[in-house]
């Protein structure tokens, strides 16, 4: 572990940040972490990320919701078999509404849970390399590399228009 350092490049805008990532990629250096004040498809694209697994989770959640909705409504109605206004015991049209609402509810909560799980949140411990400006007006690219690589990485980052800071890896 010793000898590893974090090189952080700080950029004024998204374009420069994307440019830096592309440069790093060209140099076969994988940026360890990118900080951004805004969600950016360009950064994701540059990093080569695919679709988030949150999608699948939401789908699962939604289907679970629908199934729960129908199970709860049909099951509890069958339990007592109470006549209300001569309507059928299993009245599907109203149950669809419940199933629909539960689909949204379960889907929505899965989306949030999926996001939290996937991004390891909530997280109180600090993330190495984070700077307060990264939530405001700076984009950061962190590269964890052996100390030997420091100059090369720094060069690329600076070349892309960034200012660099070097930390010892935590």
């Amino acid at each position, binding site marked *: 572990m010793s000898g590893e350092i974090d090189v952080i490049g700080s950029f004024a*805008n998204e*374009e*420069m940040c994307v*440019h830096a990532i592309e440069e790093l990629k060209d140099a076969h250096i994988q940026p360890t*972490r*990118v*900080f*951004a*004040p*805004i*969600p*950016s498809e*360009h*950064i*994701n694209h540059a990093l080569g*990320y695919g*679709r*988030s697994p*949150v*999608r699948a989770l939401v789908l699962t959640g*939604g289907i679970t919701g629908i199934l729960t909705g129908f199970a*709860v*409504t049909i099951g*509890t*109605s069958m*339990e*007592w078999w109470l006549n*209300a206004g001569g309507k059928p015991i299993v*009245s599907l049209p*109203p*149950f669809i*509404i*419940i199933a*629909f*609402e*539960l689909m*949204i*509810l379960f*889907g*929505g*909560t899965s*989306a*949030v849970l*999926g*996001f939290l799980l*996937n*991004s390891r*949140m*909530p*997280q*109180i*411990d600090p*993330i190495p390399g984070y700077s*307060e*400006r*990264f*939530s*405001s*007006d700076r984009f950061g690219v962190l590269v964890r590399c052996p100390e030997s690589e420091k100059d090369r990485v720094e060069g690329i980052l600076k070349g892309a*228009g960034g200012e660099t800071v070097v930390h010892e890896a935590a």
Partner: protein
Amino acid sequence: MAAAAEPVSGPTYADIDRGVRKIMEAPGFVYWVWVGFCFTLVAIAAALWTRQIYVGLGVTGLRQGPMWAMYITNFVFWVGIAHSGTLISAILYLFRTRWRTAVYRVAETMTLFAVLTAGLFPIIHVGRPWYAYWLLPYPNERSLQPDFRSPLVWDAFAVSTYLTISALFLVMGLIPDVANARDVAKGWRKTLYTILSLGWRGTDTQWQHWSMAYLLLAGLATPLVLSVHSVVSWDFAMAQLPGWHSTIFAPYFVAGAIFSGVAMVLTLLIPMRKIMHLEDLVTEWHIDNLAKVVLLTSLIVSYSYGVESFIVWYGKDPIEMMTFHERYFGPHGWVFWVCIFCNCIAPLPLFSPRVRRNTVVLFIITIFVNIGMWFERFMIIAVSQENNFNPSQWAIYHPSITEIMITVGSFAWFLGLFSLFARFMPIISMTELKEGIHWLREAVRDDYYPGLK
């Protein structure tokens, strides 16, 4: 993609941050007086509600005939208010509407607090609020669950889902902004924001999942918002009471909800923008677009009024005809004409760009719309019941002081919560303004609207 080093004109990220962070600075005396005033009203309402629980609903003006009136009016009104928030934050998000960025947080906050307020009213309204949880299924020794055929259970599900989803949606959007605030805050605010930001650092993976989750939430919230007010409308449409029993209620209510909600956004935004000096961020371009939505939905609502009456006339059902006759010309006929004026006539000047850009006039118009939409619900709910199937049981509803004060209290509750939020949370989404900074700059550069430096 624009060249990286091209010099920019107009606001920068830092300008945006500066603008928003300024709002979140310690508020002054006047602010606390205002918040104190709001919560005093809330306390009065709470005391009256406590008394109502203790002695019974006899303290209201409800009676045989109009068994639902002001409380349910408030419920529908507040749910309706909520809707524009989700419309702006979710539906317009999906459409990538440019002008939403500056105003969506206001709208979404309004949504959350409006649903919160709305959710109180069914509980205030029922005879035995301590059993209100029976409307939701839970395991019990009786194995007896709610009747899922009842529109009120749909309502319970829809509104609680809506409350959950809109809260999640708001929190999701807030996370990056709260993290932003955390990084400059001090003292207890720092602690608060640290907890609320859940350790957000804006890393690539966080953003990646956040984006997807946010998109999907928006995707889920879109049908939800349409369903919620449809379900609320079915509380009435599923009943066979003339004036309630109508197939057009779902779209009619949704349009009305968006109409009233956007008007409420403007009602909140215009003074807030003035007081907090947000002209730089919330430009007249934003306001103008919101005004256009008000105008559009006003026209839809007017059309709905027409269709509703037309169907009744065309259907020739004598009982329904009489209900509508009473609605127009009966003892509470003035309510209908208030609605017509406020909802159909008052927004018409918005066809003129000059009016749309004149915030004072616009503010007055939105106040009218708020009043009009409240009375529209009152008209549908209470006035229809006043003219029910059995003429001997017709009755005129007169609200009691309890109901009026609880209604006032609900506005105070809403405004108080909103005011607290506005000064302690990023009421304007910095993230999204930055994301859409090109559009903001464009608006400035084109000099289409003055006001931006």
